[in-house]
Structure formats: C-alpha cells, structure tokens
C-alpha cells in the first residue's frame, strides 16, 4: 500500500490532544485531525493548529465514541496517511484497533519517541511490559501509534470542520452514568508522591503513610496489590503499568519491592527514596536513597524529619 505524506491524529471525543499533535506534527507534510465525537471537540481540534479537521458528525444522544470504530477505520484506510497517532486511552484503543483492522497495521503502543528516517516513521517504545526499549522502522503501510493524549491546545486560527458521513454505527447505547464518590486525584502533576505496597500489614496502618505524605507535602499512592488485591487505597492512586505514571520531583516508595510493573510507572521521578525491610528488594537497585528497615519504625522518623525540615 502506498501511503501519502500526511500525518493524522484520531480524536476520541476528548479535546486533550496536545500530546497527539506534538507527536504527529513532525512526521508529515500536513496534519489532519479525524474527530469522532461531539462538535465542540471537533471545533477545539480545529483551533489547535492542524491543517484539516475531518468530523464524523454529532453523535445521537447516548451513542458512545466506540460506535464510530468502523467509520474511523474506513476513513483512515481511504486516506492512507504515513502515520496515525491516537490516544492510549480506553476509547482511543478501540478506535486504533479499528484502524489496525482496516489497514493491517500493528498498533505500536507505549511509544516514547517518534521520528522520521527519510519517509519512514521510526518508533521507540517499551516492550515486554517495560523491561526493554525497542526501536522499529515502519517499512510498509501506515504507522499506527498510541501515545498519551496530553493537554488541551488552543490559540491557532481555526480551520474549517469538514463533516463526513460515518455510515452505519455499531449498536451501542449509554443508558446510565453514575459519578463515583472517589474524587479524582492528579498524581500526574504532583511534585511529591509517597507510595505504599505490600509491606503494609493492616488497613488502619495507612494513617502512618498518609501522615508521611502530608509531612512531605505530597500525595498518597500505592502499588497494585493495595488497590486491586485488598482495595485499601483507591484504584486511581495505583502506580504502575496498568495504573498511573508519575513524574514527581520526589517519590518515596514504602514497603514496595520494586517489581518492573511498578517501576514503569515511577521511573520518571527525579529522586526515588526506598524504604523496605528486605535488603535484596529490587527497588534498592533503582533508587537514589535506600533505607533497609521496618516501615513501622522508619516512617514515623521520616515524617518527623520531613515535617521539621519543611516548617
């Protein structure tokens, strides 16, 4: 299949597309946004510095963006761009799957760096659940890449929104939506994060870790067993490969062994401090400062020292 020199982004009813545009823009001679979802999202994309916006029309009440999968696949396959960048989100992956099925391309997920080598797209991404990095050149067909969607973009002179007929949609309808009581936390922008893992013996003992987080002026987080095994900590605070990825100045890991699935989520921290009773815990090989000790002894001492230093 011959591809054009265009770069496309797929927008899944969410205007936070700064990451998509930033990744796609250097890879093509023109930048096209294909928007599934509401008109306001298409209009936001039109003012985000793209050359064209192709919009699949206003969804009827209750029709989720996933219903547009076949339309997204068809429109992209007809245009055959050099690259399609889409959001690595729940609904984004549905639309990218449709692109993959329509073009035969493989979705390159977890991409950390995109570049051009001649007219071929080169993608660097984490493989094996994050244990290695690998660079591939897309030698035939459209490169299909999933990246973090990034923030909102505005301020460019808007281009026209071109509406196209989506054709038949899939039979999906949202009939109810309930807000869950847990408020969203923004771990992604937190400067300090204190994470706790299986070293914690009882739910009541979370107060100790919460106190350390407060003393450090940071947010509480956890490794997977505490959010999904025992549900002591809200799932939105779980760090790792299928949870949150953070980029704080300081990450304090308490009672966390440091399995790769966890470390993938915290590697971008400027400084990592580890407290663990096992001197052989893998986290001690990936930290800046380590203390081997019982968290029930160490954490109150750290909280006191942090509090004194910051007051």
């Amino acid at each position, binding site marked *: 299949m011959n591809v054009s020199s265009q770069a496309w982004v797929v927008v899944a009813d969410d205007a936070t597309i700064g990451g998509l545009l930033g990744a796609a823009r250097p890879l093509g001679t023109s930048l096209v946004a294909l928007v599934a979802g509401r008109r306001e999202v298409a209009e936001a994309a039109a003012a985000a510095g793209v050359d064209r916006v192709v919009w699949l029309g206003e969804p009827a009440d209750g029709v989720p963006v996933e219903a547009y999968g076949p339309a997204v696949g068809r429109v992209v396959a007809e245009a055959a761009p050099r690259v399609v960048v889409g959001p690595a989100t729940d609904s984004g992956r*549905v639309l990218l799957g449709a692109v993959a099925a329509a073009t035969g391309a493989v979705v390159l997920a977890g991409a950390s760096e995109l570049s051009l080598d001649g007219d071929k797209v080169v993608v660097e991404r984490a493989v094996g659940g994050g244990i290695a990095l690998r660079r591939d050149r897309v030698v035939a067909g459209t490169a299909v890449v999933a990246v973090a969607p990034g923030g909102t973009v505005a301020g460019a002179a808007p281009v026209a929104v071109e509406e196209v007929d989506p054709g038949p949609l899939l*039979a999906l309808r949202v009939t109810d939506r309930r807000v869950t009581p847990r408020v969203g936390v923004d771990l992604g922008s937190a400067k300090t994060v204190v994470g706790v893992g299986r070293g914690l013996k009882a739910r009541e003992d979370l107060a100790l870790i919460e106190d350390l987080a407060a003393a450090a002026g940071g947010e509480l987080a956890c490794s997977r067993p505490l959010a999904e095994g025992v549900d002591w900590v809200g799932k939105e605070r779980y760090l790792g490969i299928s949870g949150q990825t953070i980029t704080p100045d300081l990450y304090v890991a308490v009672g966390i062994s440091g399995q790769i699935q966890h470390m993938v989520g915290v590697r971008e921290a400027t400084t990592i401090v580890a407290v663990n009773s096992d001197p052989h815990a893998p986290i001690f090989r990936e930290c800046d400062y380590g203390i081997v000790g019982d968290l029930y002894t*160490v954490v109150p001492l750290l909280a006191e020292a942090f509090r004194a230093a910051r007051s």
Partner: protein
Amino acid sequence: MKIVVAYKWAANPQDAEVGPDGTVDWSRAKGAVSEYDPVAFELARVLADTCAGEVVGLTVGAAAIDTPLARKAALSRGLDSLVMVADDALRGADGTRIAAVLAGAVRAIGDVDVVVAGESSVDVGDRQVAMTLAAQLGWAGLNAVRAVTADGGSLVVEREVAGGVETVVAGGPVVLAATADAALPRVPGMKEILGAAKKPTQVLDLAALDVPAPADTIAPVSTARPDTGNRQGVMLDAADLPAAAAQLTAALRQSGVL
C-alpha cells in the same frame, strides 16, 4: 448464549532476563495464564450461569502453549470447553496478527455472542489486542468493563469512565476487556482441576482459519535497556535510623526536591 474467554498463555516479564543491549531472554520464564486474565474467566462464568450459557476458552500462540498443564490451567477456571491454535508460525506474532487469528477462531467456533478478555497481557502489556479483535470481527469493543449481564438479546455492560461508571447496552455481539479487579477470580480447587481432564479441547489448524498471511510492516532497528535514571543508590545506615532520617532529609532539601 455462547461466551468466549480470549486469554493468553504467557510468561511474566519479571522472570525474563534483560541483556545490557536490551535484548530479552524469555527462556527461563515459564508460561501461565496471563496475570490479567483470570478475571475474564470469572466474568464469563458468572454471565453464563445467569443465562444458561456456555463458556469456551480460546488461546492462540506458538506450539508450546499446548501442554497438558496449560490445558488444565485453563479448563479448571470454569470453562465448558477449550479451543486452541498452537502453531510455531505464531511465535513472536504482532498484536494485529494475533487478533486476526483469534477472529478466525471465533468465526470457526461459530454463534459467539460475546468475547471476554483481560485488560492486557502480562508479557507485552499493550492493552490493544482485544480491541483490534473486535474490529476484525466487525463487532463493538469496550474497555474497562467491570460487569456484564444478559437482558433478552442485549448485553448490559458496566464500564469505568473518568470520574464514574457508565452502563452501556450492546445490541450486537461485542468484545469486552475487563478491568483487573472486575471480579475476584475463584481459585481452582482439586475438584475443578480433576474435572478439567474430562472437558473437551479442540486444536484448530492455523492454515484452515483463512487468516491473511503476515505483512512485514515493521523492521527492527535497535533495542536498549530502559534508562533507570542513573540513580545514586546511596544506602543509609539502618543501624542508626534517626541519623539516617536526618541525613536523607538534608540531602533531599539540598537537592531541592523536598
């Protein structure tokens, strides 16, 4: 109702060796039902039990995924039968090809109403194959699913969205990827493990599935070890913890991160 659980027999990256050049050696890592999949078996069984349905396990991969141990591990998790495509032509196959083979197998099984999968595979972690499978089948796909029930000819799906939970009614066949904590998977007991030996397994021939030949669209350039950030690795003296806490606090203050 016919329910397929699409799962993966995979090794945990925790047991793989990563060389200095970023090459991954899986030879010492053993296969297992991928960590995120038991929840899919559980969701499927619960759904089947409420609507007199049937649960068929489905996995595809290299020839080594078909062992008595691997069959038993899947069949003891509430399946009625198991279907496999085990062919060395699938060794290292990319996600789109795996999805195409799964789609071919779902068509071969026939009359399938819903495919349930885990959110991700433990060894690759792309969270993509189930949704590519949905598109290959021409079906709807939904991620972050925490519950599913049958209501007449429709499936009622609860899925997590930012800030809440949505109920989505699927009027046609659908592929669902479950959240990691959608259900608490039952641990197979002796009864289930012994019963597994009596359940049927069908091995499908890859060549008979009418799946397009792989297109070589990707060429490897290089591999590397992930940057661990050149951490300082300073171990503080645990014999005097108050001094260690003070030393750490001073260092963090000095570097401006506390």
